[in-house]
C-alpha cells in the first residue's frame, strides 16, 4: 500500500510540531523516520496511523483519503515503543485480539484465529509461548509479540515507534536483522521511527531525516551519508567536522588564504565547510591546504583522532589518521578534505 503525506501541518495547542510536511512512501518499502528528539518524527508516524489528526493537509492510503477514516478503519499495524501488550491476556490472545474484535461477518472462526496466532508466533520465533502472559516474557520477546499482534490484522501499513528503543544493544542488533528478514518475507509497507542513525541506515530502504518539524532530506543510506543536502543532515548523519570559510572567485578561503578547494558556481560570501574526519588527505607541505596545531589526540580503535586548531580564530576541527602515520607524531598537520561540501551561511 502506497502512502502519501500531503502538505501536513500539525499544531499542539499553538506549538507547531510539523510544518508543511510532504512524503511519498512506496508500496512495500521499509522506510525510517530519523531525527533528534523533538523533530516531529513520532508525530508524523502517529498522523499516518490516525492517532492524531493533522491541523492542515491530507494523508492518502493508495487513492483513498485517510483523513476521513477513523483509526479502526485505516487498518494499520502499530507497534509501540513500550509494547502496550494487554497484560491480562495470554500471548495467543494478544495476537488474536485484532481478529476477535471484528464484526461477526468478517471474524474468522475461533480455531482459525488460534491457528493464525501460532503461525505468527512461528514467524516471530516464539513458537510454543502461546499460553504465557506478557509479564513472563523478556523485553525482546514482548516486542516480538507486539509485532505479531500488529501483523495479525493483515495491515496495509506497518508502523513502528522506536521499536527497539527500550532494549539493550545486543538484543537490538539481533532484532534489527530479524525485522529486515520479516520485512522481506512479508512485504508490508513499513515505516519506523528511530533516533539511532546506525539503525536507520542499516535497516531502511530509504531514510527520512527530520529536524524541527521539517523533513530535511529523503534518500537511501548512501544518499544521505554521501550527499547530505543541508548542514543539519551533514552534522547529524555520521561524524563530521565543520569550519567557517568564505567563498570568493569560485574558491574557498580561510581568512585571507585560499585552501585549495574550488567552489565553482557557488555564490560568494560567508559559508561553512563540512567534511568527514576520516576522509582527508594528509599533506607534507602546505600551499593551498588546511593546516593546524595539534590540540588534542585520542586513540579510537584502529585510528587516531586529532583535534587541530586552525587559523587565527583557532577554530577546532577533528580529523582521523592511521595510528602509524608519520604525521601522527607531528605537532603541526597539513591536510585537505577528499570529499567535502560547502553550505552558504544562513542569512548571509
Amino acid at each position: 500500500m502506497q502512502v502519501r503525506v500531503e502538505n501536513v501541518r500539525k499544531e499542539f495547542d499553538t506549538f507547531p510540531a510539523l510544518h508543511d510536511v510532504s512524503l511519498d512512501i512506496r508500496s512495500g518499502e521499509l522506510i525510517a523516520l530519523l531525527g533528534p528528539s523533538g523533530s516531529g518524527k513520532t508525530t508524523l508516524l502517529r498522523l499516518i496511523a490516525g492517532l492524531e489528526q493533522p491541523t492542515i493537509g491530507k494523508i492518502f492510503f493508495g487513492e483513498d483519503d485517510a483523513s476521513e477514516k477513523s483509526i479502526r478503519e485505516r487498518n494499520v499495524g502499530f507497534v509501540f515503543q513500550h509494547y502496550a501488550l494487554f497484560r491480562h491476556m495470554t500471548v495467543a490472545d494478544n495476537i488474536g485480539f485484532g481478529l476477535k474484535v471484528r464484526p461477526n461477518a468478517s471474524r474468522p472462526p475461533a480455531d482459525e484465529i488460534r491457528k493464525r496466532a501460532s503461525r505468527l508466533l512461528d514467524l516471530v520465533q516464539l513458537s510454543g509461548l502461546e499460553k504465557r502472559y506478557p509479564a513472563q516474557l523478556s523485553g525482546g520477546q514482548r516486542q516480538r509479540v507486539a509485532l505479531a499482534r500488529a501483523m495479525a490484522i493483515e495491515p496495509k501499513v506497518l508502523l513502528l515507534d522506536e521499536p527497539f528503543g527500550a532494549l539493550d544493544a545486543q538484543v537490538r542488533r539481533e532484532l534489527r536483522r530479524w525485522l529486515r528478514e520479516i520485512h522481506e518475507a512479508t512485504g508490508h509497507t513499513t515505516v519506523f521511527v528511530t533516533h539511532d542513525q546506525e539503525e536507520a541506515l542499516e535497516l531502511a530502504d530509504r531514510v527520512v531525516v527530520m529536524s524541527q518539524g521539517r523533513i530535511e532530506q529523503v534518500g537511501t543510506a548512501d544518499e544521505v551519508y554521501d550527499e547530505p543536502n543541508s548542514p543539519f543532515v551533514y552534522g547529524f548523519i555520521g561524524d563530521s567536522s565543520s569550519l567557517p570559510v568564505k567563498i570568493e572567485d569560485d574558491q574557498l578561503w580561510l581568512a585571507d588564504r585560499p585552501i585549495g578547494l574550488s567552489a565553482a558556481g557557488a555564490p560568494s560570501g560567508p559559508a561553512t565547510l563540512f567534511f568527514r574526519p576520516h576522509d582527508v588527505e594528509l599533506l607534507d607541505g602546505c600551499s593551498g591546504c588546511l593546516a593546524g596545531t595539534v590540540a588534542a589526540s585520542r586513540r579510537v580503535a584502529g585510528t587516531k583522532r586529532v583535534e587541530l586548531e586552525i587559523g587565527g580564530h583557532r577554530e577546532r576541527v577533528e580529523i582521523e589518521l592511521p595510528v602509524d602515520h608519520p604525521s601522527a607524531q607531528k605537532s603541526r598537520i597539513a591536510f585537505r578534505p577528499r570529499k567535502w561540501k560547502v553550505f552558504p551561511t544562513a542569512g548571509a
Partner: protein
Amino acid sequence: MTTASAQAGWRFKKPSVIPGFGLTLGFALVYLTLIILIPLSGLAWRSASLGWADFWAIAMDRRTLNALKISFGTALAAAAVNVVFGTIVAWVLVRYPFPGRRIVDAMVDLPFALPTAVAGIALTTLYAPKGWIGSLLVPLGIKVAYTPLGIVAALVFIGLPFVVRTVQPIIEEIDKEIEEAAATLGATRFQTISRVLFPGLAPAIVTGFALAFARGVGEYGSVIFIAGNLPNVTEIAPLLIIIRLEEFNYPAATAIAAIMLIISFVMLLVINLLQAWSRKRYG
C-alpha cells in the same frame, strides 16, 4: 492485602538483607493480637460458654436470621451499586479535567469523615415521604426511608469512597498506549473498555467491592435512622446485638456477633484468594 497466600507452602521466605525483619514481624504480631485477636477471642469465648444447643437456637431464631439476611443482603446490594457508580466516578475524576474537579475529588472522602449518624439523619430527611426526594418518589410508588431500600441508600453513601479510592489509582496508571493499541487493532470504544480496560481494573474493583461490603455489614450509625428498625423487615444485625445487650442478654449478643464474624471472614477470605489468584496470573 494478600501477599502471604500467594506464596507457595509454609516455608519462610528468606528475608531481605535490609535489617528489621524480626522486629517488624514481632511488632505486627503483637499489635494484631492486642487490637484484633484478643477482643475477637473474647467474643468466641463468651459465645462458647453458651453451649451448642443454645447457640443454635439463637442462630436459628427467626428474628436473628432475618436481621442477618437484611444486613448481608443490603450490604451486598449497596456494594454492587457502588462498584458501578464508584468506578464511573473514579473514571470521570481521572479522565476528564473539568472545572472544580479537585473539589469533587475531595468531596468523595466526606463519607469517611462525616459522623455516620449525621449522614443517616440527612438521608432520612431527604428520603422520608415528605422529604425533597422522597416526596418525588412517593407518586411513583417508591418508598425509600423506613424500608430495606433506605438501608441500601445509606450503605451506598457510606461505601462510595472505598470503591473510588481503590479504583482511582489504577485508572491513573492505565497507559494511554494500551487504548491506542486496541484502537489500531480495530476495537471499538466499547470493546476497548470491556475487553482491555475493564479486566485490568477488575482486581481493584473487587477490592473496592470487598471493602464497601465489609463496611456495609458493620455499619450501624446511619442505618438505624433511615431503616425504621421494624423487627424482621428493616432491623439489621448490629442493631439486634445492641437490643440484646440492652436486655442484658449477653450470650445472645455475642452469638449473633460470632455468626456475623464467621460469615464476613469467609466472604472476605474468598475475595482475597480470588485476588491472589488473579495477581499471580497477570503479574
